[in-house]
């Protein structure tokens, strides 16, 4: 069981950036006109942001980081670590974190690397970076988490195409020996479900070949190429529904967190039905589970910090809060964090 705790670390800021271009799900020709309103109500997504060609996850993260560093008043020379979490990196190699170190003007003494996780990625990344910071040798660190899932989703799949949106975020961590945020984590994996969300070709198991570009029937009248995401919605749904509430309960039990004392539950924004059911299982009133999917869709690893920035900025910036974040999905992988914040820096959502 992977339970971790880092008492000497604090989250001191969070910023998010989305592409300006809004796509209204109700105008998609893909869904029959008669079913659009019902479809939108059930999936809980009305709009999403779509990155134009040439705009990458790293660009969205870069703009978030520049703003956050400025608003925090950090000296860039003090940043000792940068972690980039994404499944849509700039290149297969090198690691995008290296490009971001240079682009952000961070010192060469800054450690930088990528982590390839999706829905659970922000929480996983937070735990990884918190481990570096907790030691005290890394004093200021940037967690850049973003994805452009619209890039590798099939426009011929009603099940997938309307769900995803693009976003990039930046979270600031600082070494705080005396007043840390009591960060605690529960992390897990079920690789038996690796094929439940997968892009089959283009890696080194199945290198890209001409047939990778052909559309295949992926069931229920949906089509996708082997370079696009295919998802077994039912398996993912059943997984999320059973795993996320259990993970949250285990974390609370292990670290003696009173679930009723938690101000906010930031859940990965996969689909309204999943989150409604998680809230029901944990007996949470909806106000404690802010949601951003209505306006941004499922933004993969960026969904938790994007929700913090767009739905809870005022409280995060002005109050002392107890928070739980839980991400679950592709891998299959899940991660839950407890963290306390005290009037952190939250710049307004950036749109480029």
């Amino acid at each position, binding site marked *: 069981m992977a339970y971790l705790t880092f008492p000497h670390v604090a989250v001191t800021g969070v910023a998010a950036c989305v592409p300006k271009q809004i796509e209204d799900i109700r105008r998609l020709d893909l869904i029959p006109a008669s079913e659009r309103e019902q479809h939108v109500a059930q999936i809980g997504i009305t709009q999403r942001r779509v990155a134009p060609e040439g705009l990458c996850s790293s660009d969205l993260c870069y703009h978030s980081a520049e703003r956050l560093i400025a608003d925090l008043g950090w000296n860039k020379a003090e940043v000792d670590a940068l972690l980039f979490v994404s499944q849509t990196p700039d290149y297969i190699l090198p690691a995008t974190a290296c490009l971001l170190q240079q682009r952000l003007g961070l010192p060469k003494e800054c450690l930088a690397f990528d982590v390839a996780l999706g829905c659970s990625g922000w929480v996983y990344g937070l735990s990884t970076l918190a481990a570096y910071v907790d030691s005290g040798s890394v004093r200021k660190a940037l967690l850049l988490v973003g994805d452009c899932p619209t890039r590798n989703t099939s426009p011929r799949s009603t099940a997938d195409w309307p769900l995803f949106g693009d976003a990039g975020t930046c979270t600031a961590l600082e070494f705080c020996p005396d007043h840390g945020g009591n960060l605690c984590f529960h992390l897990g994996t079920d690789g038996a479900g690796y094929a439940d969300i997968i892009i089959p070709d283009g890696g080194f198991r199945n290198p890209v070949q001409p047939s990778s570009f052909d559309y295949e029937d992926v069931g229920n009248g949906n089509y996708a190429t082997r370079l696009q995401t295919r998802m077994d*919605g*039912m398996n993912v749904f*059943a997984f999320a*529904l059973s795993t996320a509430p259990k993970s949250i309960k285990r974390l609370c039990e292990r670290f003696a967190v009173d679930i009723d004392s938690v101000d906010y539950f930031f859940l990965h924004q996969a689909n309204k039905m999943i989150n409604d059911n998680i809230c029901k299982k944990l007996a949470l009133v909806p106000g404690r589970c802010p949601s951003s999917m209505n306006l941004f869709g499922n933004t993969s690893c960026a969904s938790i910090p994007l929700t913090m920035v767009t739905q809870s900025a005022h409280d995060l910036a002005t109050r002392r809060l107890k928070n739980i974040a839980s991400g679950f999905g592709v891998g299959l992988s899940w991660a839950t964090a407890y963290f306390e914040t005290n009037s952190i820096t939250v710049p307004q959502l950036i749109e480029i």
Partner: protein
Amino acid sequence: MKSLDEFCQLVAEQFENTPSSSISPSTEFKKIDEYRSLVALSILAMIDEEFDVQLRSDDMRSASTVEDLYNKVKSYCE
């Protein structure tokens, strides 16, 4: 464990516009007009909540009647 009739009632509740009286254990639920992937997800959520069983998509694919689905759930409960 809930009876087949109770299960059938619970499945029927997941359909908004189909009268529950028209759904019986022998109903091929995927052939109901209103059946969509989101109805399937409601059924999965109901089974998770009522029986603490997480069906996989293969289980849904291989079940055609409500009774087939009940038997799947039952096999996981045993």
